[in-house]
C-alpha cells in the first residue's frame, strides 16, 4: 500500500502518530515492503503457452524478465483449464529453469566409461554421417519375397508425443524420404 508509509524514519514514532500504537501494521512496514511488486507485474513480456505434461492442454502464461523465465502460471482465459494447473503444470518453471538441464551435447564413444562434451555442430556432423552410413549399409530395395520396399531397417526412432505437430511432421517427412520406417512414438505405448 504505497503511500501508507509515514516519512518518519523510526517506527516507534510512527506507532504513536499513525494510529498503530501496538505496532501491528502500518507503522512497522519496511521500505522494501512498501515497494514490493509481483514479478508478474514487472515482467518484460508474457508468452501464451500450453502445459507440456499431459494432454488436457492447460493454458499457461510464461512471464519473461531480462530473457529469463520468471514465472509460469495458468492462463485464466483458457476454456480448457480456466487458469488452473496441476502440480506438474505448476512446476513448469522448475522444469524450464532447472539447474540439472543439459545444455551441451554429451557424447559417449564406443566402449567408453565416461561422457565427453561435444560441440553442437560437430555432433550434428557425426550424426549425419552415421545416418548416411547406416542407411547405406542396411538399404533394402526388395524384401525377402522380392517385393519392392526401398527402405532401411537399420534406423529407428521413438518419441514425439511431447513434441510439436510441426516437429513430428518434419520427422516423419524426413524419415520417410530416407526410407526409415521404424518411426514410433508413445501412442504405441
Amino acid at each position, binding site marked *: 500500500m504505497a503511500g501508507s508509509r509515514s516519512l518518519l524514519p*523510526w*517506527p*516507534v514514532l510512527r*506507532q504513536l502518530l499513525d494510529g498503530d*500504537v*501496538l*505496532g*501491528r501494521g502500518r*507503522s*512497522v512496514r519496511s521500505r522494501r515492503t512498501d515497494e514490493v511488486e509481483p514479478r508478474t507485474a514487472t515482467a518484460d513480456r508474457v508468452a501464451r503457452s500450453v502445459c507440456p505434461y499431459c494432454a488436457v492442454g492447460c493454458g499457461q502464461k510464461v512471464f519473461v524478465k531480462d530473457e529469463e523465465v520468471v514465472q509460469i502460471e495458468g492462463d485464466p482465459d483458457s476454456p480448457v483449464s480456466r487458469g488452473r494447473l496441476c502440480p506438474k503444470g505448476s512446476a513448469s518453471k522448475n522444469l524450464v529453469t532447472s*539447474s*540439472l538441464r543439459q545444455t551441451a551435447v554429451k557424447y559417449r564413444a564406443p566402449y567408453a566409461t565416461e561422457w565427453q562434451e561435444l560441440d553442437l555442430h560437430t555432433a550434428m556432423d557425426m550424426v549425419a554421417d552415421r545416418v548416411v552410413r547406416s542407411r547405406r549399409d542396411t538399404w533394402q530395395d526388395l524384401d525377402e519375397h522380392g517385393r519392392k520396399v526401398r527402405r532401411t531397417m537399420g534406423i529407428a526412432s521413438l518419441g514425439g508425443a511431447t513434441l510439436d505437430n510441426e516437429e513430428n511432421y518434419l520427422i516423419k517427412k524426413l524419415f520417410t524420404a530416407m526410407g526409415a520406417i521404424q518411426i514410433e512414438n508413445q501412442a504405441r505405448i
Partner: protein
Amino acid sequence: MSGSASGGRPDTQVRHGGSPGRTRGSSRGGDRVMVPDADFTSYYGRPIVKPAPWEHDIAYYLFTGGVAAGSSLLAAGADLTDRPGLRRSGRIGSLIALLLSVVALVHDLGKPSRFINMLRVVKLTSPMSVGTWILTLHGPFAGLASAAELVGMLPTRWQRGPVRLLLRLGRPAGLVGAVTAPPVAAYTAVLLADTATPAWHSAYEELPFVFCGSAAAASGGWAMVTAPVAEAGPARTFAVGGAAVELLMAHRMESSMGLSAETLHTGKAGRLMRASKVLTAAGAAGALLGGRSRVVSVVSGTALMAGSLCTRLGVYEAGMASARDPKYTVVPQRERVERGEQVRYQG
C-alpha cells in the same frame, strides 16, 4: 538432492505412520501419571504447535536474568544499608549475570546486529519487545553501578576526574537499576507464558512468582557465596523468602495447569524439577539454619543457585516436551469442546 536449505526442521525422527491417529495417551517414559490416560486423535502423532526454536541459551538467560535482577536489588539495599561487601557482591554478580545474558541472547539470535532490529518498535503485545526495552533501561544503570563498584576497587590514585564522577553515580544508578530489576526478573515468565506452548501458557498465573522467587533465591545464593557472611543476612532472608515462594508457587502451578503439568514430572524436565526442589529446599534450610557458617553459606548458596537453574531448565524442557506431543494441545482443547466450553468471545 540439491543442496539448498533443508526443511524447516521437520521432525526428522519421522515415525513411519507408526503413530495411529487415535493415540493412547500414556506416560511417556515418566514414572508418574497425573492425569488419566486420554484417548485423542492426531495427525499421525505429529505435533500441532511447534516448540520454540531456541537452544538452551534461553533457559540460561532465564537464570542469569533472575540473578542479575536479584543482585541489583540486593546491591541497592546493601548500598543504602551500608553493607559494602554485599553491595560489591550484588553489583559484580549483576554485571556477570548481565554479560552472560547478553552472550546467551546474542548466541540465540546468531549475530549481535540482530538485537538492533528489536529497537525499531515498542511492541506492548510482545513480552520480548517489552523485555528488550526493560533490559535497555535496566542494563545501563545496573552496568553503571557495577562500573562504579569496579572503579571503587581501583587504587585510589586512579580515582580522579571523570572516574570520580562515575563513583558518584554509583548509588543513583544502582537505585534506578534496582527499581527496574523486578521487571527483568518477572518478564521472562510472561515471555514463556505468552506462547502456544501448552506447559508454558497454562502456567501463566504462577510462573512469574516462580521465576521471581527463583531470582531471589539464586541472587541470594550468589551473595551467600560471595559476600562476607556478616553482611549477607539480608541475602539469606531474601534467598529463603524467594525459595519459599518458588516452591509454593511451583506446587500451585503444577496443580493448576492441567494435563501439561505432566511434562513437569516426566523425562528430563521431571528430573530437573525434582532436583530443583531438593536443591532449593536444602539451600533454603542451610541459609536459615547455618547462616553464619561460611562453609554452610557457600554450600547453601550454591545449592540455591543450582536449584534456580534447574527450575529454569525444567520449565524450559517441560515446555518443549509439551509442544512436541500433540496430546497436550489436543486433549485440553478437545475436553473444552466436549464440555461445551469452547473459548468464545462474550461481548
